């Protein structure tokens, strides 16, 4: 029965065999999870953030657990563009699924430089623009909270990535996320991903200091899922549906039901993040669970489910 169900996704022109991707920063550069699952069973892979120069990241502690979630302040630690090209790309080239490279930087020029260098790589399906990281002093979220800057940076990176897909990752730390979404689309975004983490703090009551060395970190995990579902639905209804721009929904997904919620809210695809830390093969289990949901609900094409929220009562 489940063989007859089409859960493939046309994501801004990229064919995904299924709607489940790995979220940036939670699944390494390429095949770190290969010991735990068949990577080819994923719909797609999103690398951790790549910056022009290598970044050490923040001092420790970099994480702290909360009820139903965790805070992280890694600080975009990564090997930098050159080592990514020489060490990680060869592994990515062996992967049989679409790979999106998450790009971060402190200036627009840095984002553009990383994208320009990588756009000629055939094996890269597209880019995810990280303008929503809450854990670095410069760049990151400071771009993502100002619509005029969102337009500018998206336009610059879109010009650099040529025909490759550009996904813009949105922060929830704004009054109206639809405004940011509109700005990204105006700048040329092919798709939107939402949401990044929420800035948060945990205090050690013995020392009266923040637990994280960075003081604050980004809250992720099941705790943020209902907010993420709401924001995906808001952006879908107010912006993305009419503009025909697909949404990659993420924030606290760890079950197939969670993933289906995002799809009903308006996401064409979803990404699994924090849950992979606990259950490394979580994403593959969710793929199977989505098929079962479709079978049980007589859905032959997952695309029919996208944005199918039954709007009852006042919006």
């Amino acid at each position, binding site marked *: 029965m489940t063989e007859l169900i089409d859960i493939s996704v046309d994501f801004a022109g990229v064919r995904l065999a299924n709607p489940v991707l790995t979220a940036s920063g939670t699944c390494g550069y390429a095949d770190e999870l290969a010991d735990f699952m068949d990577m080819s069973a994923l719909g797609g892979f999103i690398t951790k953030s790549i910056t022009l120069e290598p970044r050490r990241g923040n001092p420790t502690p*970099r994480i702290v657990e909360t009820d139903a979630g965790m805070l992280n302040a890694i600080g975009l630690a990564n090997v930098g563009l050159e080592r990514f090209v020489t060490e990680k790309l060869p592994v990515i080239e062996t992967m049989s699924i679409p790979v999106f490279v998450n790009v971060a930087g402190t200036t627009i020029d840095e984002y553009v430089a990383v994208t320009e260098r990588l756009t000629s790589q055939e094996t890269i399906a597209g880019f995810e623009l990280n303008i929503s990281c809450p854990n670095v002093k410069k760049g990151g979220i400071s771009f993502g909270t100002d619509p005029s800057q969102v337009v500018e940076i998206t336009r610059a990176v879109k010009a650099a990535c040529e025909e490759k897909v550009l996904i813009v990752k949105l922060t929830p730390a704004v009054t109206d996320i639809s405004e940011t979404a509109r700005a990204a689309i105006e700048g040329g975004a092919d798709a939107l991903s939402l949401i990044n983490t929420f800035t948060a703090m945990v205090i050690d009551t013995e020392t009266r200091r923040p637990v994280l060395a960075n003081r604050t970190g980004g809250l992720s995990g099941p705790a943020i899922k209902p907010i993420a579902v709401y924001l995906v639905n808001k952006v879908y209804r107010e912006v993305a549906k009419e503009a025909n721009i697909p949404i990659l929904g993420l924030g606290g997904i760890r079950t197939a039901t969670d993933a289906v919620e995002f799809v009903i809210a308006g996401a064409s695809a979803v990404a699994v993040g*924090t849950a992979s830390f606990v259950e490394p093969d979580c994403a593959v289990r969710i793929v199977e669970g989505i098929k079962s949901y479709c079978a049980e609900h007589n859905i032959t094409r997952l695309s029919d489910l996208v944005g199918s929220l039954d709007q009852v009562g006042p919006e």
Partner: protein
Amino acid sequence: MPEEYTTPKKGLFTATVLSNRPAGECFYKMNLKFTDAGARAFAAFRPGQFVQVDASDAGLPAEDQIPPHLRDVCKRKVLLRRPFSFADVTAEEDRTTAELLYCVLGPASVRMTTLSNGDAISIVGPLGNGFSIPEGKKTALLVVGGMGAPPIRCLAKLLTAEHADIETVAFVGAQTRGALPFEGRLDEVSQNLGFCVPAFAKYGIPSVLATDDGSAGSQGLVTEYLVQWLDQHECPPKEAIVYACGPEAMLAAVARIAEKWSLDCQVSMERRMACGIGLCQSCAIECRLPDSNETIYKLCCQDGPVFDARDVIFER
């Protein structure tokens, strides 16, 4: 290291709890059984490697069974796995058993105490790099601080089984008698003979025991007794090695002592970590780059948890 040894494949396995009971005042000892692929993966477990245990599904004990100082914090839910190093691993024909010796100190470990014979527990491992035993060593000095005991005990067994020519001495420290992660009676007679910690005595390894308050063994820091031993024994640098696991301040002190005596020293480090498999990048340890003033962050989970003490810049 036998020639047929290859890096074992890590994985996500379900272990069966064989037993789970208190060991000392703040510790529990859980015996686990792996079968099939898990048995094969853990048969290759090296002392110092670790596992990530999912305790989120286990229930809380009755309120009066929870240590009073943990009753409030235990109301918190557990999301992430917790890292532990096995204290003993035994590969048999069709199964591999492991001893998980854990300190009861928060919402996850309190939940773990409710597991009992027959229960299933989800384990990711074996992870990281364990201790190595360089060629030509004739003396191994094992230094344990409090809950750092498990990987050192596992190493003691390996040294006894595969390196009988290496003379081994254990230095065990804790704040108090109650904070000692060992079972068995610390009787005065065997103490005088130098075999005061049963967990090491059973491998024929003499030990020096020290507590901060003198409630067990001698009073003082374990590192003071390491220095005293080194002062009293002929110990050619190339022939001796120090292995340590415990609080970071102790590891830093052991590293300084090893440097002073020009001894090789391997330390098992700990950091807050989410995944244990290199995804989250949270368990950073600042390390020296060879022939350079620069430092880099290595990952405790992937590059460690065992590091050459000379490489590590210890946190204060």
